[in-house]
């Protein structure tokens, strides 16, 4: 995470030293604070137990190294001057950061920091001092100086080389994170020996790390020298599908056979992602197209889930023992009814108030669903259990167990994506966009605001209801604590991070904000920390989302001047050359 480099410019101070040391010191202090944070919040000590490259470096140590290195790099990146100055500046910044950690060790040996900060423990101090304990308090300082100076040297390298190294290291880190997940399914395949060579049970083997690095750098070089990015952009946009289509076909096949190859854990994660895609597409209509900020969206999900539960459950609260397929249309219908019911009174409310009102609805429904008042009907806090799976098949059938939900979820998501796509291109979709652009003018052009907004609300609700129905079948039960406000917030976040108003954007958003945290369950609570930082960073650097629709892209970069296409292309190429 880069920090702002704001500080007195080198030009304002006539340097008698080889560089202006004030911003360097400031960056060093910030770096120290960040490193201290990483230690105290637990990332360094807890992740120390997870190796990145087995026998070489742990994930926690990597975090620390990166932090110190980055401090040095940020400090020296924009410096002019001699190479010696760079090393000095880097070392200074890194040293200051390291000094903060040294201070931590010293203070911790005297003051019982552990009473406040759980992670200020002897284990942490040992980690920081390479096992020397308090007497080795100088170790972080020295490490900081060394890494900072190294970073200074790194900043001397040509940008092209730097980028290759980035790609290499980044690939090693990513592969290290995923290593365990990839290794396990591969062990029961013909690639078993390769898997053992490259991956340890957690993290990469040293051999694996080297090979990953080399392959990543090589691929990057290939991409660059053949200028693949430019060649893709040169293809006119309506012919691009000829490039994408083969890749899409391969991806589709891979997705279809996934449960058989990669196992049911992956299948489950993807099923959850698909559920959030369904909800995301629903909210995409309500929020992304019509501009209605609905923070109570999870309520419709709940209606769908409870309807399926009530209609199909074989337990004590089931009121009929229908099949899943018979219940689904009712789930969707009731969700839509709810959407109309809730939408009618609140559609006159504007903007942020609508967010709060809908949030209130969501909470009301959650509490009522789990309350004693409605317990005879909805099962109270325990909810409705014994919801059967849609297909009643013998256990060794390929559709047995969670796998069938996987396929159903995918099918549902695809269906909804299709409907959303069609709606977007219709006159209704245009009306929604117009409302989002300028509600008053849209009305004056003849659009009935209440009806159109209500329709957006109802359709969004329908999609969420379908998601809820599938969820009920996936989990086999539904209870009030599945209906948290946090689910609505997650859906809002994922469509914004993915790219509001854009259907592929919703999918991407779901993969990143839902799929990744699910995959990294082993990091349990820290994944939310990263999630939060990721949200902040995304909004800072790419608020239009990862795959924005062209509408959102223009909305957020309105102030930027646009050059005619040729000039922009030329500028792009020049930029790439410069690295």
């Amino acid at each position, binding site marked *: 995470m880069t920090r702002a480099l704001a500080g007195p410019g080198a030009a304002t101070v006539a340097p008698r030293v080889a560089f202006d040391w004030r911003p360097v010191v400031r960056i060093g202090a910030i770096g120290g604070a960040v490193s201290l944070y990483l230690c105290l919040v637990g990332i360094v000590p807890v992740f120390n137990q997870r190796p990145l490259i087995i026998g070489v470096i742990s994930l926690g140590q990597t975090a620390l190294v990166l932090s110190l290195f980055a401090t040095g790099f940020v400090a020296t990146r924009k410096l002019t001057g001699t190479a010696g100055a760079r090393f000095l500046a880097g070392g200074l910044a890194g040293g200051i950061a390291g000094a903060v950690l040294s201070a931590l060790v010293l203070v911790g040996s005297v003051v019982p920091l552990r009473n406040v900060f759980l992670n200020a423990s002897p284990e942490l101090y040992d980690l920081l001092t390479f096992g020397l304990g308090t007497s080795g308090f100088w170790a972080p300082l020295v490490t900081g100086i060394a890494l900072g100076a190294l970073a200074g040297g790194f900043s001397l390298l040509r940008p092209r080389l730097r980028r290759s190294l980035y790609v290499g290291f980044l690939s090693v880190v990513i592969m290290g994170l995923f290593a365990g997940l990839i290794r396990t399914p591969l062990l029961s395949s013909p690639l078993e020996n390769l898997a053992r060579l490259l991956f340890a049970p957690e993290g990469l083997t040293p051999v694996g790390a080297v090979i990953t690095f080399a392959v990543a750098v090589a691929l990057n070089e290939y991409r660059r020298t053949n200028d693949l990015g430019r060649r893709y952009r040169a293809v006119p946009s309506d012919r691009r599908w000829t490039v994408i289509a083969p890749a899409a076909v391969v991806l589709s096949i891979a997705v279809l056979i996934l449960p058989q190859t990669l196992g049911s854990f992956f299948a489950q994660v993807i099923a959850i992602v698909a559920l959030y895609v369904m909800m995301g597409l629903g909210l995409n209509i309500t929020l992304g197209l019509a501009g209605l900020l609905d923070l109570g969206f999870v309520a419709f999900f709940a209606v769908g889930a409870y309807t399926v539960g009530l209609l199909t459950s074989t337990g004590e609260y089931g009121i009929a023992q229908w099949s899943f397929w018979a219940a689904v249309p009712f789930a969707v219908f009731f969700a839509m009814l709810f959407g109309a019911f809730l939408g*009618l009174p609140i559609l006159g409310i504007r903007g942020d108030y609508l967010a709060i009102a809908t949030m209130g609805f969501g909470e009301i429904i959650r509490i009522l669903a789990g*309350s004693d008042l409605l317990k005879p009907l909805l099962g109270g806090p325990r909810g409705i259990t014994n919801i059967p799976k849609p297909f009643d098949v013998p256990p060794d059938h390929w559709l047995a167990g969670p796998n069938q939900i996987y396929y159903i979820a995918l099918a549902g998501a695809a269906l909804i994506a299709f409907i959303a796509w069609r709606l977007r291109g219709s006159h209704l979709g245009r009306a929604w966009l117009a409302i989002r652009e300028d509600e008053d003018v849209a009305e004056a052009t003849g659009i009935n605001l209440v009806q159109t907004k209500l329709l957006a609300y109802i359709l969004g609700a329908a999609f969420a209801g379908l998601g809820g129905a599938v969820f009920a079948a996936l989990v086999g039960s539904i209870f009030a604590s599945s209906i948290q406000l946090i689910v609505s917030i997650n859906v809002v976040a994922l469509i914004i991070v993915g790219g509001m108003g854009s259907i592929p954007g919703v999918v991407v958003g779901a993969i990143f904000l839902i799929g990744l945290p699910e995959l990294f369950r082993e990091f349990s609570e820290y994944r939310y920390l990263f999630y939060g930082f990721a949200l*902040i960073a995304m909004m800072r650097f790419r608020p239009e989302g990862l795959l924005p629709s062209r509408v959102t892209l223009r909305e957020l970069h309105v102030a930027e001047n646009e050059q005619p296409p040729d000039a922009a292309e030329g500028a792009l190429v020049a930029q790439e050359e410069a690295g």
Partner: protein
Amino acid sequence: MQVGAIERVTEVAIAVFLWALRVVVILVVVVGSALTLMSGRYSLETWSNLVVSGLTLGSIYALIALGYTMVYGILRMINFAHGEIFTSGAFAGYFIAVGLNSVGFLNASPLASLLSVVIMIAVAIAISTPLALLVERIAYRPLRNAPRLVPLISAIGASYVLQYTYRGLFGPGIYSYPSVAWLNELLPIGGLRIRVLDVLVVASAIAMMVGLYLFVMRTKMGTAIRAVSEDKETAALMGIDVNRAIVTTFALGAVMAGAAGVLYSLLYTQVYYLTGFIPGIKAFTAAVLGGIGNIPGAMLGGLFLGQVESIGPTLFLDGFGVPSPNQLKDVIAFTMLVLVLVFRPSGILGERIAKARA
């Protein structure tokens, strides 16, 4: 024409629905209250206790709500992370309390206890304020001119970051405040017996709110804040340092929230990393209820919400024989919120932000 028919039906449906809503609400409130009171199940003392705890809780909501309303007034943005600033105050107070208790100061004498509370609040403010400014600097300032959803997501991110930072720093457990004997003593006030703690909470809250009101109305910076809330561009043209006004607003909100954190934890004797989430949401509800951007409105909204939560379930629902009515206290609060927004969208006292048309 077919389209026109659907329109008319929708309009009629909405009108009927809203009228029915009004009728149902009035019925529930009036009939429920009547039934409960007539059953005579609850003594005057019970009711007065409920009113007092409503007042106490309401004061805390009011303190937090002020932060929301001021930030919204000046930036048109929902500071989702404000609840987490509240939590920081609660944690700071906790560690100070434990420290003071371990040296025997906390319960040494009534004066010592009072002094301890003051110290806890002071330290809490000293922690919450820089934290809030840090959040503003990193998560909000770069996004000043972005469309409103962008800072909202950033605020949500900041909320997550703070929550799980607390969890990482302090662990997932629930921490109990050491008990302060003096606070639980009963004072005879006006024929009732009220806890010292309740008096303290209400008194502190009122003092802070009065202080804030005077600041905003009488000082130069307060006027600057109000000017920037009205019209940022013009205020800047008049020579007002908009940035400083914004930062000061965040600081003021953080002071309120930090103090509220200590008071809340003294009331509920517990703090953990998610302590601030729900009170945060309720406080924002209160701010909207009173009229967002409106400072007296936030105070009123907070107190009102506190009372509704406290008395509402017993008063309205018990009469109908609803089992465990206290489970539904949030339902009452949120229903009230929705009703206010439907029938009086600018809140009880009206928002201070004009909405222009055409």
